[in-house]
């Protein structure tokens, strides 16, 4: 479980997060939604110690952020940040291979190679495995980064807007892969999504954020309502139910 207690965060003088307390249970997919600038990426960075936590506490199972070593945490939690620019000129399979680094620290064994192979296979990267990252489409690159996080083989997987650049087929197949990882491999997936419909369709829980606070937290049907769209997203789009899943009519 990810336990967040009284976390506040400032960037310079500007307060970004206000006294956030939240439990993200182990297993399943938790989607973070909210308008741009709500603080979703900031919260995710704090959980993954990419930003320094100054106020409040975050625990991942028994590990306390700020105390657990970077190496140790990298074996339990993988993060794919929102901006995934790499200046190094890497091939797809090299990038995915880096996912194993926390485990072998420079000396990959046969087990590491097998996991990289399965990640490449699973994310359909086989045909482009020898291509350079700057020679494939944005969506394919996005998939390669998720595959790298997958190869890290951690209990927790944090993904910040992985559907960016993906077309509808790519987005759905990636969400199905994440579903499979949650259901079959028992991973805990925390994912920032900007499309509420994907969150409602694929996530077990939705956490809505607004201006640095948690606005709603629960199952899709409880969270995705006309009121949420009005108060949090500031739009009058309607919500309808389709086979039990709420759908935002855009």
């Amino acid at each position, binding site marked *: 479980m990810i336990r967040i207690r009284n976390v506040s965060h400032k960037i310079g003088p500007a307060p970004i997060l206000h006294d956030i307390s939240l439990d993200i249970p182990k297993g399943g997919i938790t989607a973070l939604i909210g308008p741009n600038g709500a603080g979703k990426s900031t919260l995710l960075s704090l959980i993954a110690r*990419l930003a320094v936590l100054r106020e409040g506490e975050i625990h991942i199972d028994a590990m306390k952020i700020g105390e657990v070593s970077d190496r*140790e945490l*990298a074996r339990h939690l993988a993060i*794919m*940040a929102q901006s995934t620019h790499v200046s190094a000129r*890497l091939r797809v399979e090299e990038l995915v291979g*880096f996912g194993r680094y926390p485990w072998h620290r420079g000396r990959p064994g046969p087990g590491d190679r097998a996991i990289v192979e399965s990640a490449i296979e699973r994310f359909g990267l086989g045909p482009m495995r020898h291509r350079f990252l700057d020679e494939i489409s944005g969506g394919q690159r996005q998939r390669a980064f998720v595959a790298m996080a997958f190869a890290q083989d951690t209990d927790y997987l944090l993904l910040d807007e992985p559907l960016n650049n993906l077309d509808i087929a790519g987005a759905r197949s990636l969400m199905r892969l994440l579903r499979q990882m949650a259901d079959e491999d028992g991973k805990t997936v925390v994912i920032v999504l900007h499309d509420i419909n994907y969150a409602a369709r694929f996530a077990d829980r939705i956490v809505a954020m607004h201006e640095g606070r948690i606005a709603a937290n629960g199952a899709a049907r409880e969270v995705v309502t006309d009121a949420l769209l009005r108060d949090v997203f500031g739009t009058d789009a309607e919500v309808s139910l389709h086979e039990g899943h709420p759908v935002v009519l855009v």
Partner: protein
Amino acid sequence: MARRLIWLALALALACLLYMTVNARGSWSFLLPFRGQKLAALVLVGASLSVATVLFQTITENRILTPSIIGFDQLFIMIQTVLIFMMGSADYAGLSALLLFAVNVGLMSLLGLVLFTLLRRGARGEMMRLVLTGIIFGVFLRSATNFVQRLIDPTEFSVVTTVTYARFNTVDALLLVLTTVVTLPALWAAWRMRSRLDVLGLGDQIALGLGEAPRRGQSIALVLICVLVASATALVGPMAAFFGLIVSALAHVITPTERHAILLPCAALTGAVVLVGGQTLLERVMGLATPISVVVEAVGGALFLFLLLKRRRA
């Protein structure tokens, strides 16, 4: 790609052989140690400046930077100028090699580390700020040096100009030993952190996500860079700023990979081949006394432009 490293090693062996044997007149008992020392200096300097450049480019994530941008060369010139100004050229020439080496390496390493620590105490230790500060610092040092040089007696000034060019004609044996003792462990340490460097090259966030704290790794790399550049400069004087740049660009062409297990030895070998080969050509074949740094600057500049343009088009 490992095969290309073997070819490079063979090229280096050939360059060394030519350097030792072409135009060899006189007894070998004299030639062997005389040329051998210079050869050792060439190989050492070529390898350390190249490795330092690769390290610097990795931690700055920028392929057109070299550590000399932090102002090492300028500081070296400044130190020699001030020493000559204060002691006179005769006393300067009489300084023990050990003392001069210690002063040079100490001050230059200190400069690099102080610059780095100062900048990191600020809100965010961004590499680009370090680089910009280095450039400004270099300009400041240059003006200060110019000022002191104006105060120096014109006859003494000629000494300043000779010590402030990289030279391989005279290599002090003790200095060579000192440099080796400092350089080899630094090169070994760089080799030891090769996988770490691969991860650091992915950028701060990804490196941290993989459990590799970027600041720790960057600090270690920076210490190694300071030591390598400072001791190479103390041995032969300021090398052309272009040298590291050219060699790393060449290394990326010879072994197109981001893996430091390949890149580091490739850069070290390439650097040594360029220096030994270049010096053989200059000294033995063309019989010139031109400092190799001048040639590297000219040839290197052209080659570098070519590489840049080629890359743009590709």
